[in-house]
Each structure stands twice: as C-alpha cells, then as structure tokens.
C-alpha cells in the first residue's frame, strides 16, 4: 500500500515540478517577446492623437522618421514592429481592446475552477456508468454464449432456407434484431463527434446528460471494455474449479429466470450476485482480473471526454477552454490544465490500486 502511494505521488510530484519549470520558461518568453516588440515603438504609440490604423498617420510617421534618420534599417525595423503591433492588437488577447494579461492569472484560474469541477463530476459519473455497463453487457453476452445461441444472421439464413418450417414472424423478429444490433454497433463504435453531429438538430448536444451518454456509449468505450471483460469471463469459465463446482451440483443452467438458472434481476443490479450458481464465482474471479484494467479504462474515458468537449466546441467545459488557450498560444495555462487532469488520473489510479490490493488480500486469504 505504501509503495503504491509513493509510486503515484512521486509521478505526480515529477509532473508538478516539470509543469512549474515549463510555466516559468513560457512566462519569461512572454515578457521577452513583449519587451522586444515594444522596445522600438513604445514612445511612438504613446504620441497623443496618433492613430496607428489611420493610413495618413502612418505615412506621416514614415516620412518624419525618414527625415530624422534617413532611409536606414532602423526605420525599417520600427515600421515592421509597428505593423506587427497593429496586427497583434486584433489577434493577441493581451493587446486587444479590454484585453487580459497573457498567461496564468488569478482571474483565469478562478474561471477554470467551475469547468474543472464539472469535468470531475462528469468523469466520476461516466466512470461509474461505464463500470456498470461493461459488467452488465459482458455478463449478458456471456450468458447468451452459454445458452448456445448461434449468430442471429446464421439463424435468419437457416429459417429463410428452411422450406418446411418457414415462420414469417420468426424471420421478421430475427431481421429486426439484426437491424437493431447493426444500429447499436454503428453507434457504439462511432467516434463521439459523428454520433453527436448525427443527432445535433434533434437533441441538445451540450446537455450534461447527453455528454454523459456520449462518453459511455460512443468512442468504442463500452464495446471494447465489454469485449475485454467477456474474454476474462470466458477464460475463467474454462478453469478446472468450474467443472468441479458443477460436479458438486452447483447450479449451471444459464436460462433466464428458471429456479436453477440466472435471475434477470441479478444481472441488472449494480452489485451483482448470482447465488448458488457457478456464474457467481466465474464473475467474481473475472472481476478481480478486470480491476487493474480500470486504470486503462479511466484514461480512455478521459480521452473520450476530451474528444467530446473539444470536437463539439462545448463552451464553458474544461477542454474547450484548453483548446481556446492553445489557440491563443497561452501554453502555460494549457500546461496547468494538463497537470490538473494528470492529478485526476493519478488519484483515480491510486484509489483503484488501493482497492485492488485490498481485494487481493482477500483473494489470497491474507
């Protein structure tokens, strides 16, 4: 436990130190750039009544400088800097009318608090939802596999080809199931921005619930981790103790809602328990192996949230703000946000590691 804390904390500390160094370097660069820009032109832009946007003022200035210094490189430099300054007043946030100071400021940090908290809340909720979704979907798939259900497409083809017992209702039911499954696959594997744009005119894509659903259902998050957990269930079910348990008459029927089968209610509960059924042990052992994967799942979920917030331009959310600062080239703020996200990842990883260690002690009878 101590080693987990030390490992994660030292990684976090290293990132904080590196971030601080980069922030200081970037801020020094801002100051250097600003003083370089203003060094030659500071006195000129302060001249009362001088309008840099007025072409006749600029021509007059050029002539005055030429009269004073002759056509020298100094005059060229001054004029180039003035032009640079004139353009930057429209592009540089610090020089714009009512502009704010470039880089990290107290005001910017306080403005980032709410988006950051919102990100943390969305992350926690989507993490819980995904954890529930992965276990439920994988168990459902595993139970169907154990029920010996063949591919629905194969079943449909067989039903259609069977001239003696061609049941139209069955054909429609099967075709409907395949259609729904295809749509579900397209949604589950689609990147969040494609899914969101596809329903943008019908749904409020900026709503909290929509972001939550997108983060869990799209980007392949649910389907990929379901496949991983399903494989673990499959591996576990092939182990010797399962056959041993079956020999000892523990329920092994995978039909839903039969006395010796699987209760559908148990499948949909958050904390899953299949009493007196061999699935209970298979599930618990597979879950133990899945726990370390939760760290990867957390990272992937954050990747999904970044994609959603940036690609959909969701104003007021953390990664949209980050993208804005990338655009303004305020990289010190960007580094600060990344360090914050890194802290969230590290805290999540530490909690998962600690929980895993606790469960491990139980599994190893320590």
């Amino acid at each position: 436990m101590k080693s987990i804390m030390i490992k994660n904390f030292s990684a976090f500390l290293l990132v904080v130190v590196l971030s601080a160094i980069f922030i200081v370097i970037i801020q020094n660069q801002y100051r250097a750039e600003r003083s370089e820009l203003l060094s030659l032109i500071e006195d000129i832009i302060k001249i009362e009544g001088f309008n840099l946007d007025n072409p006749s003022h600029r021509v007059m200035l050029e002539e005055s400088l030429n009269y004073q210094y002759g056509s020298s490189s100094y005059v060229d430099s001054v004029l180039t800097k003035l032009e640079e300054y004139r353009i930057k007043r429209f592009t540089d946030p610090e020089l714009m009318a009512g502009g704010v100071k470039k880089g990290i400021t107290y005001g910017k940090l306080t403005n980032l608090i709410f988006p950051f908290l919102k990100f943390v809340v969305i992350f926690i909720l989507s993490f819980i939802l995904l954890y529930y979704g992965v276990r439920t979907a994988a168990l459902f798939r595993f139970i169907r596999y154990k029920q010996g259900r063949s591919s629905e497409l194969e079943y449909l083809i067989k039903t259609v080809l069977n001239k003696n017992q061609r049941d139209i209702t069955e054909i429609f039911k099967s075709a409907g199931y395949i259609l729904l499954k295809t749509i579900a696959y397209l949604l589950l594997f689609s990147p969040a921005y494609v899914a969101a744009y596809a329903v943008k005119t019908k749904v409020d894509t900026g709503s909290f619930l929509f972001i939550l659903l997108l983060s869990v259902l799209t980007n392949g998050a649910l389907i990929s981790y379901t496949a991983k957990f399903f494989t673990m269930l499959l591996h576990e079910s092939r182990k010797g103790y399962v056959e041993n348990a079956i020999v000892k008459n523990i329920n092994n029927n995978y039909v839903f809602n039969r006395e010796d089968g699987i209760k559908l209610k148990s499948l949909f509960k958050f904390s899953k328990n299949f009493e007196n059924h061999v699935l209970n042990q298979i599930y618990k052992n597979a879950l133990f192996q899945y726990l370390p994967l939760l760290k990867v799942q957390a990272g992937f979920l954050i990747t999904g949230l970044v994609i959603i917030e940036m690609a959909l331009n969701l104003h007021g959310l953390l990664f949209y703000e980050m993208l804005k600062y990338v655009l303004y080239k305020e990289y010190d703020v960007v580094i600060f946000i990344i360090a914050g996200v890194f802290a969230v990842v590290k805290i999540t990883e530490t909690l998962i590691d600690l929980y895993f260690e606790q469960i491990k002690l139980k599994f190893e009878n320590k």
Partner: protein
Amino acid sequence: MIKIISRNKDIFWLFNWITGLLLVYLWCTAYLNTPALKNVVEASVNSFQIALISTGISALLGWGFAILYTSSQSAGKKTLPGILDFFVDLIKSIPQIIGLLIFYIILTVLILNGILKSSFSQLLFMSLGAAFFTFYEFMSLFIERVNYYRKTEFFDAMRSNGIPEIRIVNVDIFLKNSLAHIVHKAISVFGTVLFLQCSIDFIISVGLSTDVSLSNLPLSLGSMLAKLDSKQDILAISNIFTNPAYISDLLTVHLQGISVAFVLIFSLISINKMTSAMLIKKEL
C-alpha cells in the same frame, strides 16, 4: 477458400472489411463527384498509412524497451527496470489524446518554421506521436511473454544447452511462441491509432486551423469529417428520424460525409471483431 473464411472468424472479418471498403469505393464511383472521391480515397489511404506506420514504430519501440527491461532484469539490475516502469507508468497516465495534441502543437511549430516540409515527413511525425502513446502496449506484452516463459522449464533447458538468452527471447519466445499475441496486439494498436489520429485531426481541423492551413497537413478521415460539407452530410442523418425514406438521399446526395464516417466506423468494427475472434480462436 470459402471454408477457411467461414471457419475462421478473424479471417472472415478481414474479408468483410476489405469487401466493405471495396463496395463503398464502387458506390462512391457511381454517386460521388470525382474531386470528392479523390479526397475520400486520399484521406482513407493516409489514415491507414499513418496507423500502419505508427503500429510498426510502436512495435519496434515496445520491443526495444522490453529487451532492455528483461535483459537488465536477468542481469540482476533493479534500477533500469524501475526507471522504465516509472516512466512508462507516467506516459500511461497521460490521456492519449492530450499527448497527441501536444505532438500536434509541436508539428504546427515545425511546419511554420519550415522544418517539416514534405507531406511524408509530416505523416511520419504524426505516426511517431501516436506510437509514443501506444508503444507501452507492445512493451507490456513482450515483457509478459518473457516472464511467462522464464517460469517454465523451457527457458532454463535452452539456456543449459548453451543458447544465448537474446536468441531464446527473440526467436524461441517472440517469433515461435508469441506470433499470434503480437499480431493480435498489432491489430488492436492499429485500431487505437486509427481512432486517435482521426479524432485529433477532427479537433485540430475544427478548432486549431488558423495557423496551419488544413491544406498543409496531409488529408485524413478526421480532417475530411471536419470539412463543412461533410459535417452537413452527417447533420442530415437526423432527417431519417422523421422521414425514413430520406436514407436514399443520404446514400446518394450526402455521400461524402457518410462514406468517410462509414469507412472509419466500419474499420473500427472490423478491427475489433478481428481481435475478439483471434482472442477466442487462439485462446490468447
């Protein structure tokens, strides 16, 4: 041939994928205008190319670091494996998309300064970025395979026969006994890179295209999706909720965006299905 395809689900999905892409191409030749078709093909080729190069670099990096790790482990050294563990953990904790965004900022700077001029060098740099945030998957796999075989008699028996450890690891463990694992990992990383690279391209094209014009960066499925006409095509999908017959318009009038999105999603589905089938077939 048909028997092999129907018996092996992984090959079946590979066949499906290639056939699906060919069908999309044929459909597009019939309904999509030539310049748009050219863009769709170029974007698909570029995206698959980046994913492929990136997977190669990722595998090489993973293999290199794994050899370094396992050889220092067997030499009884603890510092180097400890340092590697620490830094790999650190990279793992950076969400991949943020890492790629940092790489793209560097790429922008390099393009603006005229350092990366050719389209291939830009593709290579983009691949390197994606490989940097995926190589640890290969590294973990290689280390896991070596550690697994170290516990068996196989390893000691070969060593007592005088076979050098480097040969046992590379030839007998990786090449002869882990090829299925490596291919499985490569397909999975290919899918991850394809998804990440398209997403970052979409984000960059939507939000950061002021400095580097989109035409400067190699066209990809992500940047194609970010184009205004593609976005309008995707927005049109919602029309089928109120008018299901609109699907025919989607497949003919709005073909650019729909075909790009389909190529991406269908590729991700096929790749996922291939890896799942391999896992079950080879009991990996």
